[in-house]
């Protein structure tokens, strides 16, 4: 490897600099991919929790429409977490845990602020505007501030450079900027709760004309999105360059861990699908601020008053631009998850992934196809036969690579020697759960059946199965799996099992009834959960079932959160740098990996999952062992 003496010198300086850098440089404005990864991870977890809190409040209204909310109970949860983390922080003397504790205190305060507001909760009952705004923010936060930053910004950042044998991301400063753009985007989104009229309330899809004429929160939402999009763009460029350029010697494309492949394709989706949404956001901002009417047709009458705009615009234009991003975005939510699952399954079955190559081709194909199925979200907008046939066909085609990947993962179990570790439990549960979510996508993808199911709870059930017991489970698997790499300690096993089983049943308790309600025809985004509709009556009792399951789910997150912080200092120490006996490169570094990761460029000799090779005495051969 050629490198000029000057860069060498600069590098040495920067490493030395880093060592003396102190709190701010090391933890806040770090350019080390691992620190940035952790920053992403912590922020995303807090946002996930917040998105969940909004939903817990909403679920009260859905289960008991019009009944006064016991605000104290809902504040209790973040308050308890805050107190516990603060105690842990004091015991273990970790400033950062303290910071998280304070954040949770802030969340508790925010929840308290909201539920005790007489305008938002007159007599303790959530007003419909607030319900809509919570719904929109739940969707936005979960997708753009929770799952994607955790999966891509967090795990991607931490693990990808290690797995490709790179010292860092290709552009460390860009990486830092990407995190801070995300952070600002998140703060802007949170701030929108405090503007007049509250946060955005036109759904995470922000369809105009509704979003064009909505309260100020929508403008703030759009600004927040511009930051988040910028962050994703910077991140995706970084990932692609890192994977293409910084792969270790001998690490050919077909030797990349599947996780890296998943991140690679994800990065392309982010790179090419996000800009159209950015364009759409600019156009909607213009509509809202500069009085244009890109999305406003002529002759609108809003509450009996003719709208004073030039008109001529097209509401469907927004939908095209939005779904051009948002369909690929849903694969952004799930591809990294599949990547994590692949790692965990290979490691815990102690055998190579079955059909690795076909999985790689499938994921490439999936990524490509995901750009041309977007209008399956728009079947009910008045499509003719040609366009609907096109999009139905592509939608059915795209389900095939998913089936291939899932099938390969499942067949990988056959012949294995399965260790039921906590990450493996989550990974195993992922398979049938994603199966339900994916399969329920099929009737939605066929236009005639979508007539009955579109915009009902069936859709909500469909995608929550893929994102919650799907992606979120995969993310939990990843957290338990890579935790010892980051901290040098294992998370407590018993608490992990409690977390798993509780979450597994609670998740199904929330999301399966949604499918039943959806088939009965109950619309989504209803403030009263459909209480007034005759066709909803027979399935109304399920609202309470779902809500209680959601709160139970929340309670079962407590062992996880406690475990997560407690184990940083008190968890069982790992005996080696490679506690799971894994093959991929991230485990062949010291724990935690130092700045620069590897002492020298690793040489890779084999594929990613050489477990139980009969030619080898041990049951695994790391990629860098000759």
């Amino acid at each position, binding site marked *: 490897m050629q490198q000029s003496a000057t860069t060498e010198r600069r590098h040495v300086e920067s490493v030395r600099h880093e060592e003396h850098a102190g709190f701010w440089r090391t933890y806040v404005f770090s350019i080390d991919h691992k620190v940035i990864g952790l920053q992403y991870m912590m922020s995303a977890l807090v946002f996930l929790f917040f998105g969940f809190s909004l939903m817990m409040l909403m679920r009260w209204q859905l289960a008991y429409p019009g009944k006064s909310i016991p605000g104290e109970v809902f504040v209790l949860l973040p308050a308890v977490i805050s107190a516990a983390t603060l105690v842990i922080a004091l015991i273990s003397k970790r400033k950062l845990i303290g910071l998280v504790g304070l954040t949770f205190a802030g969340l508790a305060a925010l929840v308290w602020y909201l539920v005790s507001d007489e305008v938002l909760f007159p007599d303790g009952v959530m007003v419909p505007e607030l319900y809509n705004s919570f719904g929109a923010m739940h969707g936005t936060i979960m997708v753009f501030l929770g799952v994607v930053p955790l999966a891509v910004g967090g795990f991607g950042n931490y693990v990808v450079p290690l797995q490709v044998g790179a010292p860092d991301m290709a552009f460390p400063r860009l990486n830092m900027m990407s995190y801070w753009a995300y952070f600002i985007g998140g703060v802007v989104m949170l701030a929108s709760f405090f503007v007049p009229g509250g946060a955005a309330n036109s759904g995470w899809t922000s369809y105009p004309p509704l979003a064009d004429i909505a309260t100020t929160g929508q403008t703030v939402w759009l600004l927040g999105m511009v930051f988040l999009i910028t962050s994703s763009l910077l991140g995706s460029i970084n990932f692609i360059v890192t994977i293409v350029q*910084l792969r270790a010697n001998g690490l050919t494309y077909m030797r990349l861990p599947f996780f890296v492949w998943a991140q690679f394709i994800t990065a392309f989706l982010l790179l090419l699908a996000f800009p159209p949404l950015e364009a759409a956001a600019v156009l909607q901002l213009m509509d809202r601020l500069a009085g244009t009417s890109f999305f406003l047709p002529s002759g609108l009458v809003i509450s009996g008053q003719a709208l004073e705009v030039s008109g001529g615009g097209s509401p469907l234009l927004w939908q095209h631009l939005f779904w051009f991003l948002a369909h690929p975005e849903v694969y952004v939510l799930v591809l990294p998850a599949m990547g994590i699952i692949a790692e965990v399954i290979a490691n815990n079955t102690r055998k190579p992934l079955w059909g690795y190559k076909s999985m790689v081709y499938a994921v490439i194909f999936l990524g490509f196809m995901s750009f041309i199925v977007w209008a399956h979200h728009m079947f009910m907008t008045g499509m003719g036969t040609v366009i609907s046939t096109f999009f139905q066909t592509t939608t059915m085609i795209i389900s095939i690579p998913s089936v291939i990947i899932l099938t390969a993962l499942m067949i990988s179990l056959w012949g294995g020697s399965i260790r039921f570790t906590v990450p493996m439990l989550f990974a195993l549960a992922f398979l049938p759960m994603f199966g339900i979510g994916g399969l329920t996508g099929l009737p939605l993808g066929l236009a005639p059946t979508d007539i009955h199911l579109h915009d009902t709870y069936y859709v909500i059930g469909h995608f929550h199965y893929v994102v919650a017991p799907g992606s979120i489970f995969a993310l939990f698997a990843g957290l338990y799996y890579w935790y010892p790499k980051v901290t040098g300690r294992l998370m407590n096993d018993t608490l992990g099992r409690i977390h798993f089983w509780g979450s597994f049943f609670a998740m199904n308790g929330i999301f399966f009834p949604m499918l039943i309600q959806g088939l009965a025809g109950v619309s989504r985004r209803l403030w009263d959960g459909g209480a007034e509709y005759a066709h909803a009556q027979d399935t109304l009792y399920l609202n309470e079932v779902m809500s209680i399951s959601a709160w139970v789910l929340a309670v079962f997150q407590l062992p996880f959160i406690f475990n997560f912080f407690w184990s940083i200092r008190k968890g069982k120490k790992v005996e080696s740098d490679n506690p799971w006996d894994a093959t991929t490169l991230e485990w062949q570094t010291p724990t935690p990996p130092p700045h620069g990761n590897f002492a020298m460029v690793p040489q890779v000799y084999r594929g990613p999952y050489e477990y139980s090779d009969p030619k080898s005495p041990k049951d695994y051969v790391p990629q860098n062992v000759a």
Partner: protein
Amino acid sequence: MQIPYTVAARPDTGLHNSKLGIWLFLASEVMLFGALFSSYILLRVAAPEWPHGSAILNVPLATLNTVVLIASSVTMVMSWASLMLKDFTKYRRYMGLTIVCGLVFLVVKVFEYGAKFSAGTFPGEDLFFATYFTLTGLHGLHVVGGIIVNTYFWGPGSRMWNTEPRRFTNRVEVAGLYWHFVDLVWIFLFPTLYLL
């Protein structure tokens, strides 16, 4: 270990990191402006009537701007070529010219906008002006960004020439790719907005 291929090209791809990076960035920019073009086409096709740009916009000024921007592209690429020929003085001159051209472009734009505003025409006027202001405005922001980058490489950033000439040349090349792209976008904006 330190980050490889920041200066030299990776043998199997033939690219150094920032070269690949900038092309990826430009790909995303293609999708950004592509989406806006797509919106423009859709709105125009659906509109019952659409004004003829040349009738309401100032074509001579825009032509001047086209010439200025194309010239700036040439000076930009010349500044890179000068670095390749190890002629730093020439580089400064060409880069300076590029910046000046960029500024001229903006000044002309300001006059154009000013004339429209003082005539009481704002983006809310109709869809034509909405697209006109949005597209040229966003393009203008890209020009501003380019000028900032170029100015940095003309001024403080050019110190790198003394320590790491190859790396600096690469940086200028990358900045140039961006600048040419901005020029390229204008080449399409000019006829679509002003002439059709």
